């Protein structure tokens, strides 16, 4: 069994939050058109509060730690936060737009033992990237910082979120990543705003564009395997847990609220009022999430994709029901295999409107 799988299994068995994601701030020096956050300062956790939280998290068994935002370099105490996290033995990934990173920052990032540094790059064309971030010159500055950090031996990651304005730019970004010797990742899903407002999901790429992504060997590996019809759903698949959110993973907001995942805004407690371990072990909400098995999902348990779907419970929650389908993932399963999900069939039955060329339009019409 691969080591990561064994670790996750052990964490699941012992109820250990192996991975945690902390947003240190929601303040940001970019204004990305697809951003799901509010950028007001929400009374962020202080350095002292964060040190205490990191101590508690280390004690609870958290190992993989992602520090993100907002823009983390807007916190003047970032180096101290990272230093404390390293002292407590965390494996650290930083997510940043890197606009504020200077040579001296690159030096401390490299010497502090940060393992991964991730920057979102939306396009190889400055006019497209900068229009998405709404900061002129941002592509040039982000790339410069990425090169500085990579030159110091830190594993860098170029993440490309796809949306309408950059739908076909991923290959250009992939080339940039190759040139920088950075890892390249892609995310074709726009997440609804944390307030629940779904307006920004209109930026999602079209079915045709998603099909291009899923038919690209450089992104998905073996296309035939990736796009193969799902294997029959067996008992193991029905007994499986939907994803690691709330099981071995949690998210903490800048003001200390604890959620199952950054994409799953179900409030489970606040570290300003309770110990982290108490929230993790005793929160009614965490225990509700943990109790869910695929067989408990009324629609998804009847779906042929149940064993292979990437269903995000957080996106389902943001659609109004954590036991329901995530339509973005129904779309992915369909585009991958050409086989409609149970939810897609259900919507077609309930809404016998003329077939639309865009499935999302059908969903919106029926909601």
């Amino acid at each position, binding site marked *: 069994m691969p080591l*990561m799988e064994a670790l996750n299994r052990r964490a699941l068995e012992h109820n250990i939050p192996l991975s945690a994601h902390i947003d240190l701030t929601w303040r940001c020096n970019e204004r990305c058109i697809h951003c799901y956050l509010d950028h007001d300062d929400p009374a962020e956790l202080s350095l002292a509060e964060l040190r205490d939280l990191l101590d508690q998290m280390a004690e609870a068994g958290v190992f993989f730690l992602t520090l993100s935002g907002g823009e983390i370099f807007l916190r003047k105490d970032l180096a101290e936060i990272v230093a404390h996290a390293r002292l407590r033995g965390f*494996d650290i990934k930083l997510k940043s737009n890197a606009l504020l990173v200077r040579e001296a920052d690159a030096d401390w990032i490299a010497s502090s033992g940060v393992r991964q540094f991730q920057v979102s790059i939306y396009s190889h064309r400055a006019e497209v990237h900068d229009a998405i971030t709404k900061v002129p010159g941002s592509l040039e500055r982000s790339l410069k910082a990425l090169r500085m950090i990579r030159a110091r031996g830190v594993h860098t990651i170029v993440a490309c979120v796809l949306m309408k304005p950059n739908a076909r730019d991923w290959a250009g970004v992939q080339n940039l990543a190759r040139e920088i010797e950075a890892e390249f990742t892609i995310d074709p899903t726009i997440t609804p705003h944390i307030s629940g407002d779904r307006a920004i999901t209109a930026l999602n790429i079209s079915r045709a564009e998603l099909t291009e992504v899923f038919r690209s060997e450089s992104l998905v590996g073996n296309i035939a395997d990736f796009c193969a019809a799902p294997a029959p759903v067996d008992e193991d698949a029905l007994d499986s847990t939907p994803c690691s959110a709330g099981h071995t993973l949690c998210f903490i907001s800048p003001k200390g609220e604890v959620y199952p995942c950054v994409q799953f805004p179900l409030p489970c407690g606040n570290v300003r009022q309770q110990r982290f371990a108490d929230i993790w072990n005793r929160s009614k909400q965490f225990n509700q999430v943990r109790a869910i098995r695929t067989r408990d999902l009324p629609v998804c348990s009847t779906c042929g994709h149940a064993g292979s779907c990437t269903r995000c419970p957080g996106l389902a929650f943001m659609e109004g029901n954590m036991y329901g389908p995530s339509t973005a993932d129904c779309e992915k399963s369909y585009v991958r295999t050409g086989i409609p999900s149970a939810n897609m069939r259900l919507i077609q039955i309930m809404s016998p409107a003329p077939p639309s060329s865009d499935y999302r339009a059908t969903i919106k019409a029926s909601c």
Partner: protein
Amino acid sequence: MTFPLRAPNLASRVLHGEAIVMNPADSGLFSLNETATAIWLAADGQTPLRTIVESHICPDYEVAFEQALADAEELARDLAQHAILLLLPEPRPNPCP
């Protein structure tokens, strides 16, 4: 004599008696069993390997000292090859934090 020392800058966590260790330099991930974890945790750069075996391995396991020491030396060499343990010929002057 060998004085093992945990390499600097590693990430590590002990979960239910077993350590996981990540080397940020190459993203090498290691899982140590209970015995290896005991040696790893005691590797402060000041305690000789044979003392670690005497005080941390032999009392807890039914094993002859010479056999335990041979196993520990093999493990230490293996961890050193993966750059997560340093094998010092002399004790380091300051205790490991």
